[in-house]
């Protein structure tokens, strides 16, 4: 009997397949289907502090604009009784999701201000989330701002949130830290129980016909697996935190690689959006088949088995390997 269970931030999960934050968690129906298809846990779509603020301000702006200016039209809209403007809708939905499924539900929070993070984190905990994933994403555009200042800010946020909530806390990271292992350790020390590698950024694109900067949302591919794979392999065993690999999990092979690198769980969304929720079942079946075929008995057994500390050639993860890879191109030269 295969043992697919894994432990992620003290959550005991039936397998390492977790649905990552995506629109799939917006409806109870799809949430239930995720559970039925075999997801071991669900990360809710993100509560965006900015979005809440933006929508509030926008609603207020358009409801107020033009009011009390002109005697015949003192307003232009009926002021409705309620607007779902705060985090309440999210929290209510979280509660409903919790009731709808038995698997753990991880809240997700994308914030901008210290006050906002802490306040919303507490509310998510109160709403019944089994854990919280903080999505820290700050795009530094100010040339006067040093990486140290930004990192200190992040660490302080983690401390602030940690001090207020009791459920496990994961941090979804960007790959663009200068010294990722160092900051990862700082986050762990600050109270992060898990590190989720990596946040995918939706980089804007240029439309050459209209000469406009356009938003661009593209689903991930398996190629994107490599970056988090390397970093989890490097960090596993060195940092006191569990790892989740997100970005590029599309197949059972991707899951296996992630676990072998040291991930406790793998998170997926793109493949489910692309191929449907049923994809989970195939991946799970494939996973089991591969393990059977290769005579693995448990996930725990393979976890971290190909981390840098475990492999025969640790340098493969390092710069030497980079040079080797570059040289490999020579084979293609005419």
């Amino acid at each position, binding site marked *: 009997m295969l043992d697919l269970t894994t432990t992620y931030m003290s959550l005991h999960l039936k397998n390492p397949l977790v649905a990552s934050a995506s629109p799939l968690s917006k409806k109870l129906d799809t949430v239930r289907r995720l559970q039925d298809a075999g997801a071991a846990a669900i990360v809710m779509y993100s509560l965006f502090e900015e979005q*809440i*603020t933006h*929508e*509030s*301000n*926008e*609603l*207020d*702006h*358009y*409801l*107020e*604009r*033009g*009011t*009390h*200016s*002109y*005697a*015949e*039209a*003192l*307003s*232009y*809209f*009926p*002021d*409705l*009784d*309620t*607007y*779902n*403007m*705060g985090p309440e*809708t999210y929290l209510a939905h979280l509660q409903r999701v919790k009731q709808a499924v038995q698997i753990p539900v991880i809240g997700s929070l994308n914030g901008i201000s210290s006050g906002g993070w802490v306040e919303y984190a507490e509310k998510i905990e109160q709403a019944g989330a089994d854990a919280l994933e903080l999505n820290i994403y700050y795009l530094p555009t100010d040339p006067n701002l040093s990486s140290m200042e930004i990192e200190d800010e992040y660490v302080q946020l983690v401390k602030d949130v940690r001090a207020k909530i009791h459920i496990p806390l994961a941090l979804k990271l960007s790959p663009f830290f200068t010294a990722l292992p160092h900051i990862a350790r700082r986050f762990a020390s600050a109270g992060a129980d898990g590190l989720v590698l990596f946040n995918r950024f939706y980089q804007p694109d240029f439309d050459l016909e209209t*000469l*406009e900067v356009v938003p661009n949302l593209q689903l991930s591919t398996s190629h994107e697996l490599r970056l988090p794979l390397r970093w989890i392999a490097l960090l596993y065993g060195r940092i006191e935190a569990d790892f989740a690999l997100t970005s590029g999990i599309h197949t059972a092979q991707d899951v296996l690689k992630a676990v072998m690198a040291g991930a406790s769980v793998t998170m997926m969304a793109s493949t489910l959006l692309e191929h449907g929720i049923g994809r989970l079942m195939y991946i799970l079946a494939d996973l089991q088949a591969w393990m059977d075929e290769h005579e693995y008995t448990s996930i725990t057994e393979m976890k971290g088995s190909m981390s840098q500390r475990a492999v025969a050639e640790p340098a493969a993860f390092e710069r030497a390997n980079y040079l080797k890879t570059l040289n490999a191109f020579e084979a293609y030269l005419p």
Partner: protein
Amino acid sequence: MERNRVTIEGNEAVATIAHALSEVIAIYPITPSTPMGELADAWSAAERPNLWGTVPLVIEMQSEGGAAGAIHGTLQTGSLATTFTASQGLLLMIPNMYKIAGELTPAVFHVAARSLATQALSIFGDHSDVMATRATGFALLASNSVQEAQDLALIAHAATLESRIPFLHFFDGFRTSHEINTMEQLAREDIRAMIDDSLVYAHRQRALSPDHPFIRGTAQNPDVYFQARESVNPYYLACPAIVQKTMERFAAQVGRQYHLFDYVGAPDAERVIIVMGSGAETVEETIKHLAAQGEKVGVIKVRLYRPFSIEHFMQAIPLTTRTLAVLDRTKEPGSAGEPLYLDVVTALNESRENSSLDSTQRPVPAHIIGGRYGLSSKEFTPAMVKGIFDEMSKDNPKQHFTIGINDDVTHTSLAYDPAFSIETGETVQCVFWGLGSDGTVGANKNSIKIIGEETDNYAQGYFVYDSKKSGSVTVSHLRFGPHEIHAPYQIGNGQANFVACHQFTFLEQFDVLKYAAPNGVFLLDSIYGPENVWGHLPHEVQQEIIEKHLHFYVIDAHSVANKTGMGARINTVMQTCFFAISGVLPREQAIAQIKRSIQKTYGKRGEAVVQKNFLAVDESLAHMHEVQVPLSLSEQYTRSKVNGASAPARRQPITLPMLSRRPPVPNAAPDFVRNVLGPMIVGDGDDLPVSALPCDGTYPSGTAKWEKRNIAQEMPVWEPDLCIQCGKCVMVCPHAVIRMKVYDPAELKDAPDTFLSMDAHFKEFPDMKYSLQVSPEDCTGCNLCVEACPVKDKRQVGRKAINMAPQPPLREKEKANWEFFLSLPEVPSAHLNIGAIKNSQLLQPLFEFSGACSGCGETPYIKLATQLFGDHMIVANATGCSSIYGGNLPTTPWTYNNEGRGPAWSNSLFEDNAEFGLGMRLSLDKREEYAHELLTKCAASVGEELAQAILHSDQSDEAEIQAQRQRVVLLKSRLAQLDGTEANVQNLLSVADALVRKSVWIIGGDGWAYDIGYGGLDHVLASGRNVNVLVLDTEVYSNTGGQASKSTPLGAVAKFAARGKATPKKDLGMLAMAYGSVYVARVAMGANDQQTLKAFLEAEAYDGPSLIIAYSHCIAHGIDMSKGLEQQKLAVQSGYWPLYRYNPALLDEGKQPFILDSKEPSLPLERYVYNETRYRMLLQSNEERAETLLGQAKHDIQEHWKQYHEMATHSPAEK
């Protein structure tokens, strides 16, 4: 009993009672009664029950006529029903009012009394509308204040049930309907106590029912109609006593005693005024003041005007009365006197002859005079009351006088001393100058509520707006004090303890401090701090501050608002400062109250909104500073003062840079503009004498160009190095402030140094120069031009051929350039191929600088029509936004070209616009036919060749029209040389202009075309006559604040459709196409300007009725108005607004008449709708419903597309 003391508007006070006592409410928006309907609708939407525990059913109808009809049916089937209306709306109800009264049906109509459209429309208050209903058989009950409006509303509902006579309960529009005042709110128990359910059951018993059938509404013949009409007399005879009895019951329950005629004043009064409405409050307060000085004066406040009880009336008149003055707030031209006056005369006369009416043997008053006051909310002040009493003291007081105006034509007006005041100083009076967009009025409404409800003070607020929809100026009048406030007039000059100016630039335009009382406070929003503000004040302001010893404070409110995320809304900042300075509450308590109120108002919109307001409150006080006022004016003015020059300081030579208040219009303006419109612009229109005003409502065209409003913070700047001369920016400019011309290079010799030009790229104009020019002072800064510009700088894609830049540094330079640009010759239009956008935009717009919203989606269409057809265009304009920005004084945008030709414009009513336009067409056609007949007869005399050329001219394009015009000039000159006594010659001379083509444009919004005017529009379209109908479709009643029309789309939130409209938009185009003989086009300029242009040209060319339905983005959609064009594009791309043209003329050519001009939907509907607050707010409040309705909408789009596509590809049958 515990009753709440509330500070609310009259409309709310009345609607509360009406909603509590109705089962069905039929509504239709009309100012100033609209808020009653909106409140009733909102309360029912929120499931507020009526007195009997059930939620009243509220329905919006297609017109007030429809509302009255629906109410009639409702009443006949036994429901308790009400409606709210005013002015023309009430007139539309009159036919049903006769029926409802004739059938002795209990009902109450609540009316915010308003002027009627005569020489002009007016939205303001008087009794013209109510007086027009006095023959209907409705009882007329008048309320004089906010408190009374509530109380008498209840008395009306109670009395109608008992008397069976329907009641029209009225109160003064704006003055009472929109005044906020502190009053005692009736408890539910009070309402319960006043309504006898057995009377409700009796009403139901009389209802039509198949269970006990009868017929009502028969037709009667000469034998019985008369007698039957007299059969109602007992009810009318009984009614006054029933009302008085109801008033007694009310007094017993609530404590406030009313009478049919309330007398107030000296018991031995010799001079008595008789008046009804809010003016009675003014008279009463003045009488208290005069009586305290021993004057023997009094007032009779008429409450139940119909049925008029002579007996009750006579009891109210003191026996000592020597002179009676009856004041009417209406005018009946040609009558023997206004209605109330005539009733009083009749009453006195009858009572003399019939002792049962008055047994007192009273001496006959020496004089009974009638007078008019307060038409269209004209101020009626204690000074005017004093003037009337003074007149009444004369041996021969003036009969049929007017008060409050200067009638220098027929000399009806009474003189009075405007300085007379009854103020005791116990009431604090505050005036606030604001910009519509800065939130001043909202903040003041909030402040007055706090003062009235959270302190022991009584409070009153009244708000004055100008008629512009962009950059409008507001003046708020706030009073508070320890006693009830009965002052239904604005705060007078020199009487305000506190004056705030929320926009520094107003100091240049208006006499802001005229209101300030000596030793008062002046609070100014100023970018200049306390140390240097003084030198930046116009010297008139300096002088007033010094002379009145004002305490002067400044705050940089805009900077605080910006810093705290409030943007241009400085309301919270200024409100905080007001409370801090006024001391009406201890500072901490005031701040707590402001914050509580912020939480209450904005809490549901989200924490971010609350927090930014809180921050603005917290930041305000630290930025407010008192200014140490110098003892003297700035230097150059001190000199004139010391010299004791008699001329006003403002006329002294200025030796140093120094601000002066600027004249409202330039000196170059025509006399009428300077002398008549100018004073209106600066708010001094009240001072204009009767002789200054046209007697028939006729005003000159082209006056908007003289009112330089300078409201844009930023204006467009042209970059010739990038410009491709496409004309798109010119086309979309809602205010016609961007123009282009091609001209001979020689014209540039006198050009200002900064005037820009480039080589013209028009094949029709080789070797010419081209310029694009912006009028800086007329621009509203909407940014649509920049959005429309298709060019991007290859080196810096954010830079276009036209870009926004701050206006102030450009103003003077561009003013000079604009002047020069205007002096360049217009492009000759005769042989221009105007089918191309760039060519069409060389044509002069004859609609410019309107007061429409910045970024308005309607005006570009109107402007385009004037460019193409303006010199031979007559416009019938339905009431609505376009009639307001098109025809509301002081200045109006319809203008004329250098030859003096331009659109002739008129507004008849809301409901009849199509018919009005058809009438114009019929008249023009008839006159042309007659001219043809005459010309045929005179052909030999004027020259056969000329006659035939005229008779057979094909005026299908501009060149031909101009050629015909020349022929007619020649014809007229020849006619002038013929025998002047010959009738045909004289007649032909007077109608010869009809030989030149005239084009009739019928313009209006969707409220008109889809709802109130649809019947007429349908008939006109069916008539086959050559009219062009332009529907500016904003999908709501924009002018009255966004109420749903039948054009409102499925799923959009609008007033009266707060849950999101559940039914689809009416397909007006399809209905019109069904005739097969109507040209129909659906256009959206932002999506396809070329198709729009084509549609306009085809509509004009089609010899029959044409209908253009134009997508007009609107402030009521809740969009970023600078992205209006983009929204239009999305509307088309999503399939929501397919573009098409249906041209019956193509049928004659055997072609498919329906041309689908847009491609298959290529965007999800969400991309379009969720850019708009009207859709998004439903998503935010009720996601499930939003999604359901969106699903239906998507389905509809697919179905419509299929249908249109089929029509476009279907081969027409041979004709």
